[in-house]
């Protein structure tokens, strides 16, 4: 004990996601942290409570034609289009490093048919060191993929099938581009999902008035970053009042205050997405700042923030 009363405030950062225990409530969001290795010389990847990998499909995908990213004010648009190495190369080239990390590994799975999802999961079931799956039913960048996320019926059907394939932690990632997101959350909860993560990107578009072209070749792209945070928070709050499984909040998180906001609204954990592009060491800063916030509020267990939102009298 150095420094006597200068001790650092102690915070228990661990949180429970179903049967999983995460050492802290921050996960890397799918598609914004590669396969875990890329940033490992800038930040120790296993400081994260968990890593959600880039979406994995049965075959390798090039993704959409460029330009497929563009900046807008307070955010970005992407139409990457599920570019990934495919499940086989993933298992061979990417899994070993992920297994070596002292953090939870959630493999994000995407597909165009139920069969695609099943194929990926069946192959991954053979592999050790995977703590769960996040099912991307909400990527707005590919035709077909959106279907599962935009109706409660198709989301439920997919969840049911996947539930029968695995006993691992199964988390469904919800699309914000729907009339009633809690209806879909309820449907997947009903089929045995262990958690839902929300939100994926919103459908957006930008235009360059000089060239008179869309800023993305694909015209539409997924909107992410701080600009979408108010929408994400509202959806987390809404879903929190609809389901009992844990929520993982995503959308525009840039700092520790944002993390607390999502937890107050009902999230058990959160994912850091676009912030990884701007500030690869964001996680380290957030962990420090969370301690300061917790101390100012006399909180010793980070999970105490969950759903603590107060009402106006």
């Amino acid at each position: 004990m150095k420094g006597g009363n200068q001790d650092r405030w102690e915070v228990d950062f661990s949180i429970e996601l179903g049967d999983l225990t995460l050492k802290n409530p921050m996960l890397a969001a799918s598609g914004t942290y590669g396969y875990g290795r890329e940033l490992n010389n800038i930040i120790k990847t296993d400081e994260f409570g968990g890593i959600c990998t880039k979406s994995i499909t049965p075959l390798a995908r090039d993704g959409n034609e460029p330009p497929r990213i563009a900046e807008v004010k307070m955010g970005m648009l992407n139409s990457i289009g599920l570019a990934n190495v495919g499940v086989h190369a993933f298992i061979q080239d990417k899994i070993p490093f992920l297994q070596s990390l002292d953090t939870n590994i959630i493999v994000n799975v995407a597909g165009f048919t139920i069969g695609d999802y099943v194929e990926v999961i069946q192959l991954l079931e053979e592999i050790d060191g995977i703590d769960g799956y996040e099912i991307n039913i909400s990527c707005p960048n590919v035709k077909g993929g959106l279907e599962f996320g935009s109706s409660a019926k198709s989301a439920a059907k997919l969840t049911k099938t996947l539930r029968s394939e695995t006993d691992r932690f199964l988390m469904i990632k919800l699309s914000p581009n729907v009339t009633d997101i809690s209806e879909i959350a309820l449907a997947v909860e009903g089929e045995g999902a262990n958690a839902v993560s929300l939100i994926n990107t919103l459908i957006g578009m930008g235009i360059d008035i000089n060239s008179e072209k869309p800023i993305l070749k694909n015209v539409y792209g997924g909107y992410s970053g701080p600009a979408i945070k108010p929408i994400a928070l509202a959806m987390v709050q809404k879903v929190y009042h609809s389901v009992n499984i844990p929520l993982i909040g995503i959308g525009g998180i840039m700092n520790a205050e944002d993390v607390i906001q999502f937890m107050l609204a009902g999230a058990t954990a959160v994912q850091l997405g676009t912030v990884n592009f701007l500030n690869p060491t964001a996680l380290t800063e957030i962990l420090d700042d969370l301690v300061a916030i917790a101390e100012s509020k006399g909180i010793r267990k980070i999970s105490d923030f969950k759903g603590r939102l107060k009402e106006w009298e």
Partner: protein
Amino acid sequence: MRVLSNEKIALNIYSLTFESTALLLESLPGQFVNINVDGEDSPFFRRPFSIADVSQDSVEIIYEVIGAGTWILSTMAAGDSIDIIGPLGEGYDLNFSGSKSILIGGGVGIPPLMFLYNKMKEQGIELQFLAGFKSVAHNYIPRRITNVQYSSDDGSLGTKGYVTDLLTESLLNNEVKHIYACGPEPMLRKVIEIADENEIRCSVSVEKVFGCGTGICMGCVIENSLKRFTETGRKYSLVCMEGPVFDSGDVNL
């Protein structure tokens, strides 16, 4: 990191130096740093700049003010703190063949070649430096870099015309083993064409809009001709991670 100096060195062109880290001291020519000029406000993405020089305690970049990001950069002063990550990317191959090389650059494509020039000089490589500018007012190449042949759009510096004309000329008189190029895309395309005709190995440094600069957003793709799997399927390479320097035969510019 701390800004050490930020000075105008030519028309609209600045040299910025900042405190080096141990990691940055290991930088190689062709690698870049990625700068967050305005927190999470617009401009939203970081801005990439080639490393122009690394000395014992500082790193230099040379940039042209062309938009909001570079404008904000130009307002920084010694002592300001600046959010820089790097070195990033794959630089030029430094296994020099020993035989004659040409460095050819245009505008603010020249900084990585200045860094490369230093490394070559250290190793005593014989080289020719061809530099194209809009006008003499844009020239920022320091005097210690000798043996530069200039071209300019308006003839105010060196030959009037394209820097690639100097290349063609140069190849008539010299046997060259390796061309190292950086500059605007049309220039690079012409350089590659000339290199191909003359069957000379050619390394180009490519620019794309970077979302992250660290290989995680998968946005900065260029079509490749590698016929093998890359991080993003088979068709594309990531410029920020697999480049920005490519062998000209590996990518379709």
